[in-house]
């Protein structure tokens, strides 16, 4: 049996936020079965399924779960933490999953908790997601009422507005009540995570896939998608496209299929200029890459990442310097300040990009921008620095002529007609003018 929808299955024609409706489509039946299986048998199915994490890093979930010490190997309790702190620009799939299939997420939590011998689950949900929080909370109450929790407690913990808390160790710090600054690794969370205890951290979509994997078997799941990218993903499509939204598709579907068939193509007679394939932190693709399959491996071949599965379509009205500036402003705002290259580097990137956009940059500053990117890349504790440097370096790499034109003409060649004209960032609202200049 092949199905195009696994995570969102059944949600199109039923209100699966209600436990009765979820049970009518077979919900929670797999939980009973899983609890009848030994934890190792459940883990084996996850290993066979070969599902890679859906949060962005793409680490194989079964392997990560296998790193958790077995009962008796560690004196501390084992925790399962669900990362529902979805904040990567362009990404809104976990929100859809929580809004439409909250019980599938809860069932996934309970099955996974059984597999790793955990009785304590924390769902760390993004603070801005108020409605999603209410829906999960209501679903949890229903699950409690139905006596499904066994000896497991699920605590729904709300964040308070910090992108960095989507990074797993920052999330743990935040959950422990600290400022959300990432930790050094090792030790990895599987050994010393939440409260210095063994902790498995998975994304919402990954956990919501677990019931289907256990229900149909890991081999069934692995049969879908491609060898390097099993199963389906909920792709978030946004930007200059007619029908933005979330589309759960088999991995291996091409960008063309997603953007044109599902998304209805671009409005008007606009042409694709650039495509961000996996959230704002990944290197950009161009219109020439439209036939690239949405897989981990095909994106790696193109020098980019599938990331969070967020595809942002950018049409030919967009000034790439403005895009770079807005992306850099975001990462500057969200840098936690712990590592110098990220804290200072993102600020430099914003300053140089602002000068280029305003036509005040000298030739050497274009190379300085790339130099700053290089001094961030791979030199920070967590991936946020890379997330800032990689896209900016790729914009310069793929659209260098446009950056050059800003310098040559002493201003933006779009002359006020770019789709991002007057783009505004929260960092601007404190000052209403560009941040400090680059020292001469």
């Amino acid at each position, binding site marked *: 049996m092949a199905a195009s929808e696994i995570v969102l299955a059944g949600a199109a024609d039923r209100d699966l936020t209600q436990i009765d409706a979820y049970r009518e489509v077979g919900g929670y039946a797999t939980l009973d079965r899983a609890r009848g299986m030994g934890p190792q048998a459940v883990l084996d199915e996850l290993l066979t399924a070969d599902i890679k994490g859906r949060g962005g890093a793409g680490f194989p979930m079964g392997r990560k779960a296998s790193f958790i010490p077995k009962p008796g190997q560690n004196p501390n309790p084992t925790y399962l933490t669900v990362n529902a702190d979805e904040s990567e620009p362009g990404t*809104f799939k976990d*929100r859809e999953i929580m809004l439409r299939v909250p019980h599938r997420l809860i069932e996934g939590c309970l099955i996974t908790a059984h597999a790793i011998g955990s009785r304590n689950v924390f769902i760390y949900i993004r603070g801005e997601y108020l409605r999603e929080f209410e829906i999960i909370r209501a679903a949890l109450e229903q699950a409690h009422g139905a006596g499904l929790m066994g000896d497991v407690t699920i605590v729904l913990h709300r*964040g308070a507005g910090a992108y960095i808390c989507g990074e797993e160790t920052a999330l743990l710090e935040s959950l422990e009540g*600290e400022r959300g600054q990432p930790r050094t690794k090792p030790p990895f969370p599987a050994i010393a995570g939440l409260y210095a205890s063994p902790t498995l951290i998975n994304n919402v979509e990954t956990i919501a896939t677990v019931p289907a994997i256990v229900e149909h078997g890991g081999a069934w799941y692995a049969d879908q998608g491609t060898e390097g990218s099993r199963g389906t993903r909920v792709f*978030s499509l946004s*930007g200059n496209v007619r029908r933005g*939204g979330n589309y759960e598709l088999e991995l291996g579907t091409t960008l063309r299929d997603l953007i044109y068939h599902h998304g209805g193509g671009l409005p008007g007679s606009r042409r694709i200029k650039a495509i961000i394939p996996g959230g704002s932190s990944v290197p950009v693709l161009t219109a020439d890459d439209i036939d690239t399959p949405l897989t981990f491996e095909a994106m790696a071949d193109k020098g980019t990442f599938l990331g969070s599965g967020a595809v942002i379509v950018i049409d030919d009205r967009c000034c790439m310097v403005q895009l770079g500036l807005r992306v850099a402003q*975001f990462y500057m705002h969200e840098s936690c300040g712990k590592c110098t290259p990220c804290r200072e580097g993102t600020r430099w990137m914003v300053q140089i990009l602002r000068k280029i956009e305003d036509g005040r940059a000298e030739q050497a500053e274009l190379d300085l921008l790339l130099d700053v990117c290089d001094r961030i890349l791979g030199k920070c504790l967590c991936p946020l620095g890379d997330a800032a440097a990689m896209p900016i370096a790729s914009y310069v790499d793929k659209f260098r002529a446009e950056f050059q034109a800003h310098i040559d003409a002493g201003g933006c060649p779009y002359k006020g007609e770019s789709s991002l004209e007057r783009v*505004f960032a929260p960092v601007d609202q404190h000052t209403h003018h560009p941040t400090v200049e680059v020292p001469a």
Partner: protein
Amino acid sequence: MYDEIQEIKAQYPRTRSAVLPALRIAQQRYGWLTPDALREVADALDETPAFCQSVASFYDMFHLAPVGRRLVEVCTNISCALVGAQQVLEAFEQELGIRAGETTDDGQVTLRALECAGGCGWGTVVAVDHRYREPVRPEDVPAIVQEVRDGG
């Protein structure tokens, strides 16, 4: 508030984990995290006010200065910006007579830009007291402002 925080504390193996929920409760009560509010949270958690403030200052959703009774936030990250978030933000600025980051003179409404709200496919996303409206176009703004001013 003290009792409510004790209940939340009990959900966690360590007290400090209750700091975000406790700060949220205090903010709901006082509108923003006043020095008194921080002291109350600190007392309930057996922490110092300085610690509570250090945590609160890390997170965008906590207000360490007074804000309006209603909070209007416009996502201006790239997916929304590509479909005109700046025009939506400017429409709010014009309608409310304030700039992003400011509060109306009567203390009723604070307007601010927001980083990616997670509604990218339905931009522009506007959150009114954290309830999402999507998509919002510049022409929708006067009605939203009227509704907010009327207490809706």
